[in-house]
């Protein structure tokens, strides 16, 4: 298993985006959600130290239906209540979590809005 590392603030995180979250070419705030349970719950991203955008896209269930947006780690950490952790998986050393999106309440709405502002397109999904 891979060693868990500290992700520096200038690192880039890649997040897969299904084309269903793109409306008129715009990413929508509903795209940001945590998956998984317990310690493994979080928003799955890939760290650019160990993954390219194309490799991150290739990990999608259906790459043709997905795109990639990126975050600067430090900008994500600037969002109150959010943490970024390296969470390598046996077949994906780049795997990292953005954690802290609550299930409901105003905080979830705030964090989704701030994540939308913090990300930028790397690969847009094909129409």
């Amino acid at each position, binding site marked *: 298993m891979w060693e868990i590392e500290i992700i520096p603030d200038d690192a880039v995180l890649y997040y897969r985006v*299904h084309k269903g979250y793109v*409306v008129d070419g715009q990413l929508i705030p509903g795209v940001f959600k945590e998956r998984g349970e317990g310690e493994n719950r979080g928003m799955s991203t890939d760290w650019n130290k160990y993954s390219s955008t194309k490799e991150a896209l290739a990990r999608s*269930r259906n790459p043709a239906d997905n795109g990639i947006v990126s975050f600067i780690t430090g900008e994500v950490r600037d969002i109150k209540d959010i943490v970024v952790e390296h969470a390598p998986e046996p077949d994906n050393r780049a795997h990292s979590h953005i954690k802290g999106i609550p299930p409901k*309440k105003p905080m979830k709405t705030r964090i*989704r*809005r701030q994540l939308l*502002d913090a990300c930028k397109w790397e690969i847009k999904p094909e129409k």
Partner: protein
Amino acid sequence: MNTKVSEYKNKIELNGKVIQTLPDTLLSLQKAIEKSKYILDLQPNWDGEDAEAYTENVWIKAVAFLCEFSIDIFDTFGKTPVTPSIYHGPEGSIDILWKTDDLNLLLNIPKDDQPATFSGENSLGQEYEGSLNTNNYSLSFLPHPF
């Protein structure tokens, strides 16, 4: 759903039923609402991960609130609110996003009876977040999108 329907000439309809009406000053809002009907066409698993479809009830709740809120803003302040974008949100909810150089406000309308939630900031660096009952709210406690 107990919604007050205003009596303006521009009707917003769903399946032949009038959901709300809007004055001419809010015609761009009517266009945004008509555009948002795409949400009702989303089929289960629209995201490839078993996402649920959206009910007419949540769309009507969002549209009814948005119209009433916008009319209230115009009647109270004499200003036409910024036209928002209306999107499908998490877990069957609806997101309403007002975004300009001066304003960034996201309002989420849940599919159930839970309060709506909002979060915003303006170009002066002021931030706000909170929750509201879409059927009974006070304009003075809400951010004003203009």
